[in-house]
């Protein structure tokens, strides 16, 4: 079986769950004797493959881009321009005989739809997030929605990372539910570390991820327990969040780290006592699995894919900062709660392997192979 996979990011260059997913999936598929040509924009830190079946093919001369749109108008203009060019290049460069095309999210959907025609082979689209998620359900941009809808309509099969996302695909994009399969994400376990007294938020600082709810919760916790709150990541909300921390009078207890390297991310998961993912809209939420795989008790938003499937974590409404504070304080106070959650989440995490994701993806492939 020979697959053309159209990607956007791949480690070491990655900013979101999409890059992590492509890395885990392509390597596990390669181990199952699938031949994969993985196409992606040219980047500074060139990714390399040590697997015979997996070729990473860089296209054009795109520079590093965010996964999400930049907030300034000028930058976003350049960004859309680059995305457009990348799609044009993909259409030209991808040639030869493939059994199917597999693309991820809106970034490569335009090229994927045209390549399906050109190469005459079926198309699989994985939806890691939709425009509605990225906009935090406020003012979604019709331009993205149209691209996404066309890609979903033309796809022979759609893989959604959760039922949460499948529901959006069916209800907001009008896609036949029979065409959409749910495959949950996986994680490469990080391993336990020595815990410090800190509560962690990690993710892009955007509306979608709900960092302001994390700060409101921090205020409530600090009235009862002494701990530190770490906000790891960067994004357009950073200045606003710093101001919020000052206004709440908790600036001395909140640490903003900015963007972290992969190594630093692993370290902070290991030393965090509690991980909180208060996302407004999270199609899956691989970070929650990463935290759990470091033995860190985790609180996730109910508006997330991971909350459907992972048992050994707390599930809260992202806006319910009282309840989030209740859980954080309890975790800080009651050792048996922390140790039990840590123990069972480490056990459960073993079920979330890329090998399983690859098996499920192969099942989808086999349904549409001609």
């Amino acid at each position: 079986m020979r697959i053309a996979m159209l990607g956007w990011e791949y480690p070491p260059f990655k900013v979101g769950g999409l890059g992590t997913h492509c890395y885990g999936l392509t390597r596990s598929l390669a181990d199952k004797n699938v031949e994969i040509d993985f196409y992606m924009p040219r980047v500074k830190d060139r990714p390399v493959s040590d697997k015979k079946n997996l070729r990473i093919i860089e296209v054009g001369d795109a520079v590093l881009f965010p996964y999400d749109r930049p907030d300034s108008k000028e930058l976003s203009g350049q960004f859309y321009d680059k995305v457009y060019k990348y799609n044009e290049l993909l259409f030209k460069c991808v040639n030869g005989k493939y059994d199917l095309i597999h693309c991820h999210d809106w970034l490569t959907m335009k090229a994927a739809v045209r390549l399906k025609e050109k190469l005459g082979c079926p198309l699989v689209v994985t939806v890691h997030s939709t425009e509605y998620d990225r906009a935090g359900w406020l003012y979604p941009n019709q331009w993205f929605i149209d691209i996404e809808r066309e890609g979903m309509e033309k796809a022979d099969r759609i893989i959604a990372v959760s039922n949460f996302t499948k529901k959006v695909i069916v209800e907001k994009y009008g896609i036949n539910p029979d065409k959409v399969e749910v495959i949950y994400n996986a994680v490469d376990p990080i391993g336990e570390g020595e815990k410090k007294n800190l509560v962690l938020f990690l993710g892009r600082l955007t509306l979608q991820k709900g960092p302001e709810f994390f700060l409101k919760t921090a205020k409530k916790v600090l009235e009862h327990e002494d701990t530190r709150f770490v906000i790891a990541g960067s994004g357009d909300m950073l200045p606003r969040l710093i101001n919020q921390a000052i206004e709440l009078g908790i600036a001395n207890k909140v640490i903003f780290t900015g963007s972290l390297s992969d190594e630093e991310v692993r370290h902070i998961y290991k030393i965090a006592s509690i991980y909180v993912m208060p996302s407004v809209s999270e199609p899956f939420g691989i970070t929650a699995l990463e935290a759990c795989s470091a033995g860190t008790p985790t609180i996730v938003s109910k508006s997330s894919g991971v909350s459907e499937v992972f048992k050994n974590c707390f599930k809260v409404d992202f806006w319910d900062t009282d309840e989030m504070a209740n859980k954080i304080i309890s975790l800080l106070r009651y050792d048996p709660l922390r140790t039990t959650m840590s123990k069972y989440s480490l056990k459960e995490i073993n079920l979330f392997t890329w090998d399983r994701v690859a098996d499920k993806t192969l099942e989808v492939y086999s349904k549409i192979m001609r």
Partner: protein
Amino acid sequence: MPSVCFYFEVHQPVRLSRFSVFNIGGVQDPYNSYFDHKKNRAIFEKVASKCYIPTNKLLLDLINKYDGRFRVSFSLTGTFVEYCELFMPWVLESFQDLFDTGAVDLIEETYFHSLSSLYDDLDEFEDQVKMHRDMIYRIFHYKPKVFRNTEAIFDNRIAKKVSDMGYKGIITEGADKILDWRSPNYLYKPVNIDIKVLMRNYMLSDDVGFRFSARGWSGYPLTSDKYAKWMADSPGDVINLFMDYETFGEHQWADTGIFEFLEHLPGEVLKYDNLDFVTVSEAVNRYDVKGEIDVPWAISWADADRDVSTWLGNNMQISCFNELKDIGRILREKKDEELLYVWRLLQTSDHLYYMSTKGFEDGAVHAYFSPYEVPYDAFINYMNILQDLKQRAMHR
């Protein structure tokens, strides 16, 4: 000839309110702030209409139809009886009607369906058994002869205590690890004391309790004639079919056909010359023990493990259990009746059961009976309440 001994456990816990860390030390009335009376009433009324009322009526009809040859036994927990008296006294009256037929026996247990048999001292256990005894006497003018501990928890120490309190028989699980090759269809005695032990036939009991509506099961669909034949083909003196009463109409909904099954069962069983029905007291009177059992570590009828790990299997459960015992020591010393009652409601084993983290197969059963999304929520809620009660106990 094997006798069929049906015994139903009738129990409803007093479920908790949501109680966050912010509530600790900040509430006036513990009884009304710890327990969610509105929700408890709603659940009780729902289960009463789905199970207690229709099943009691069916059993009464069946006992009359077969002229007392169909016989069953019940144990009613104190919390269940309190619900009846508070919200639906006619449900309790329907149990009295059943008892008055003479074909129904009553079983003793701890009033609060608690784990007090596992405390370091058995004084609290004894108090709760006496409370149950007084309650049964008040309502039925009867003194039970047979004892069944919470979830059939049993060990040599409990057997001795129960025997010392004057009971002739005790019920527990026919666990393989105790019986090994031996059949549960005989009476046994513990190595350390003379009391007759009824061993639950878990295969036949769970065929009704758990598997009745399981389409993947080879016995599906379970009909009363098939089930009666299985029993007629069984060797032994007594087949102990012990299950939750809520099996009828609540765990197995009416549309599974569970009521039709029950309706036809007495007739099918009585077709066989070698089968009849007995109550637990009759089983204990009629049959002799056939062997000894030695149970140094507690067994129960719960989950695949058949031990107490369902309630005390993880650190959260153990820490709550220890906290509960510590608070009890303070309250028993101070003889604070109001707080003692609240503390006893908190001893109901269900509260610890909701914190179980046992995986998948058993875990699925837990999820069905738990009002909490994850066991960690159950822990926080319960532990917060214990912290509040502890502060209260120390300051009185």
